[in-house]
């Protein structure tokens, strides 16, 4: 009995030692991984900056804070990665928060750039921001991959989101109730979707009051992927095989159809800056609008040219 007890204690001590060493190891790894980018950003500018004569004050660290629409976020992050790779002395912090938050952040000076996935509202125009269209995006009306419906007319989409069409069999699908998924009030994607599909009037949004509401493009995608009878809308850039985008009036959403003006549900991505745009923010926007930056836009979104 006694030996069993001491064996147990020994096992516990061994476990603790293992746990401690494991902790030690992981923190070492963490510190090593965080130190490498810092080291590289210190060493590389010394080599590259003499060649980059066009960039003044290249040796000092510049930080650009970007926030706003969750629809613009994935694109802004990719642009930021490429931008940082080209100019190692610049750090771009990209955050979400939503279109309205992006405008608010720029006005309050929290961010250098505020992203919106819609045109500015009248109340936001008063801030006199510099608006830069960096790309166009489609809004994909999507369903669960197992849904037999592949195409809807614009009127059918309107009817479904207004709550007038409530069964899939009315639009050529199975005899199942339609679960309508929308976004929270104030979302740029929702605003653009309602504007384009005329789902708003002077009394506000016309989207059915019984619609489920999910947070962000990710929330809608997760809900669509898990619900066979659901329909929702999300940024074309975040569509993957977990959801099925529908054709609208026989036109599938894609970069080509939106560019040609055939797919009706598209909107601009804006980067908004204050009148006194910071140097870093201007560099970043110039980069996105350059051929190099637009090449990144091309992968999933529509270029401005």
């Amino acid at each position: 009995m006694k030996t069993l007890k001491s064996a147990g204690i020994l096992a516990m001590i061994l476990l603790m030692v293992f746990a401690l060493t494991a902790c030690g190891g992981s923190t070492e790894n963490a510190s090593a991984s965080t130190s490498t980018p810092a080291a590289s950003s210190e060493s590389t500018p010394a080599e590259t900056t003499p060649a980059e004569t066009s960039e003044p004050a290249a040796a000092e660290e510049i930080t650009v804070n970007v926030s706003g629409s969750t629809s613009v976020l994935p694109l802004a992050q990719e642009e930021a990665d490429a931008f940082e790779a080209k100019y190692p002395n610049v750090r771009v912090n990209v955050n979400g928060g939503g279109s309205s938050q992006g405008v608010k952040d720029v006005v309050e000076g929290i961010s250098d750039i505020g992203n919106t996935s819609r045109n500015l509202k009248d109340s936001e125009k008063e801030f006199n921001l510099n608006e830069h269209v960096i790309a166009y995006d489609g809004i994909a009306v999507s369903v669960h991959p197992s849904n037999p419906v592949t195409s809807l007319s614009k009127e059918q989409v309107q009817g479904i989101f207004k709550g007038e069409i409530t069964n899939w069999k009315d639009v050529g699908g199975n005899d199942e109730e339609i679960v309508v998924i929308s976004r929270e009030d104030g979302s740029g994607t929702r605003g653009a979707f309602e504007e384009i599909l005329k789902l708003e009037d002077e009394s506000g949004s016309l989207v059915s009051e019984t619609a489920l509401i999910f947070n962000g493009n990710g929330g809608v995608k997760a809900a669509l992927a898990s619900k066979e009878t659901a329909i929702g809308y999300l940024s074309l850039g975040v569509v993957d095989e977990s959801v099925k985008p529908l054709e609208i009036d026989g036109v599938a959403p894609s970069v080509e159809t939106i560019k040609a003006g055939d797919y009706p549900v598209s909107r601009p991505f804006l980067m908004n800056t204050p009148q006194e745009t910071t140097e870093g923010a201007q560099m970043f926007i110039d980069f996105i609008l350059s051929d190099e930056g637009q090449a990144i836009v091309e992968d999933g979104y529509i270029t401005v040219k």
Partner: protein
Amino acid sequence: MILENDRIEQRVLKPMKKMKWSDIFEWLIERVFFICAMFAVFSVAAITIFIFIKGLPAISEIGLLNFTLGSKWKPSANLFGILPMIAGSIFATIGAIAIGVPVGIFTAVYLAEIAPPNVAKFVRPAVELLAGIPSVLYGFFGLVVIVPLVSDVFGGAGYSLLTASFILGVMILPTIISLSEAALRAVPVEYKEGALALGSSHINAVFTVLIPAARSGIVAAIILGVGRAIGETMAVMLVAGNTPRVPGSVLDPIRTMTTNIAMEMNYAVDLHFDALFGTGVVLFVFIMILNLVTYFFVHRNVAK
């Protein structure tokens, strides 16, 4: 001033000189404790003032009745009625009580009275672990497991009052179990012995003597559970469907006050933004009432 100095000098000089250092130390430590205590008070005051300053103008602009009794939340049309959210919070909490309280109290009785020690030995840590699981994981579990289950069994989308109530009911279990068990154990053993001596069965004694005697402790446990349920945000947001509409059945989606704030805070501007703080004020009032009720019950317990 001089007099005061004299007095302090007297007090310090009276004991041996050696005591001086420890006196200062004592004084210093007391101040540190005082500052720590004030930190909590200051935080509560700051949060309260901030929420009311931000929220009250919106409520007065919208109108108290329009705000709290309006059944339409439609910021795009300047309609800010939070009745659906108040109803959502209350219904979800009632649902959580309906599921969590019976299970919780029976578990507490089992642990305090019936469970053999080697069963209690792993039930209790399991309950404690349940308390430690982050709420977002409850929500995630609900989204992946409970939502499809409810949809399959009862029909509908699965994002519903029922799902939210179930998740909240499980979340408040640890609070109810541990506090109720403590209340049951605090009942003097003579009560039970007396009941048994009078010929009562064990289970009968539990229900007619033990639980009534521990009543105020159990009620306090339930109210604390309610506080947790009404304040929960993340788990509810993932499973409730978040439709701002007064639910007509347990299978309808709901939006609670907390999720209303969390969902729209990032997107709101102008009056919409302030109305979210107004929602916070109403939520705050609810929590205050709950705290007062808890205080009343705990106080009465002591007075007895």
